[in-house]
């Protein structure tokens, strides 16, 4: 199983924290409230374990809401923002400001969730691309609802594909919501990532 050293993990977490921090600032401008987002930890796990991690929070089928974007260029990855369905509803309600309780996300709310995914994923990947000084091209967001396995399969990954999981803490108006961003990466992309992190660290230590 692919893994990073403590220092490499530190660097990656810091990079993602900068990314979601900027996303939080964007979202804060939309709702005119303080929004806080942070990435407390990351892990590299295979797809089966990733699905289990998400399902553990919401065992009912069809209970995960995901927004995915595909990135190509210097490396290729599928990035997926995931929240348990009721939490997605909560986030959208908080962002949109509606307190009308509807059973399912309406089409307009799905679009709002897509935008939220678009903001967060672009911020994360954008920061990554900038710091690694790499050129990437992204796609527009796509909305998914289903079990975590279904959502991860939709990304075209195999059951033993490695997934870089970011744990995300989202805080708005005293509501604290925990979600995930999954990056589906193939072996070459993973090694590329490790190499880039080390270059970044070397620059930080004044050795590059």
């Amino acid at each position, binding site marked *: 199983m692919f893994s990073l050293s403590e*220092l490499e993990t*530190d*660097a990656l*977490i*810091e*990079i993602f*924290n*900068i*990314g*979601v*921090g*900027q996303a*939080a*600032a964007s979202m*804060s*401008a939309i709702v005119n409230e*303080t*929004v*806080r*987002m*942070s990435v*407390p930890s990351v892990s590299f796990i295979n797809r089966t374990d990733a699905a289990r991690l998400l399902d553990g929070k919401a065992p009912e089928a069809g209970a995960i809401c995901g927004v995915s974007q595909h990135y190509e260029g210097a490396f290729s990855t599928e990035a997926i923002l995931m929240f348990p369905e009721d939490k997605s509803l909560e986030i959208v309600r908080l962002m949109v400001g509606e307190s009308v309780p509807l059973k399912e996300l309406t089409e307009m709310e799905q679009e709002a969730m897509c935008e939220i995914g678009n903001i967060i994923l672009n911020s994360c990947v954008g*920061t990554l691309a900038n*710091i690694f000084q790499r050129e990437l091209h992204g796609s527009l967001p796509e909305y998914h609802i289903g079990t975590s396995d279904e959502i991860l399969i939709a990304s075209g990954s195999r059951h033993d594909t490695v997934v870089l999981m970011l744990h995300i803490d989202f805080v708005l108006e005293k509501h604290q919501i925990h979600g995930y961003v999954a990056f589906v990466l193939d072996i070459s992309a993973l090694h590329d990532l490790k190499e880039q992190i080390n270059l*970044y*660290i070397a*620059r*930080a*230590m*004044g050795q590059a």
Partner: protein
Amino acid sequence: MTPAKTVLIVDDSRVSRMMARQYIAGLHADWIVEEAGTGEESLVKARATPPDLILMDVNMPGMGGIAAAEQLRQEFPAVPISLLTANVQTATRERAAQLGIGFMEKPITEARIAQLLAALEAA
């Protein structure tokens, strides 16, 4: 040539602290850089070696950056403090203004550090 100063950099990310140390050393090789990984640790370090400048990450577990900055403001009123954050929002700006401290946007770059130091020198 400014006299050698002591800078306290507070951030839970080791890489972040390394980068800040690197950029400061690049501009002032003789300055001393102290590090702290948490708000609590920053109080201990500051009391042990009073700094001339404090860089404080906002997003830290435990006693957050803002709480630590408030405490340090009280104990070291003459020391300039700069909050480090990727998430510059109105609430952060207002709080910083209230405390009389500045903030710097993340990611920490050589240019931003240079800008901060130049601004302090001018003050």
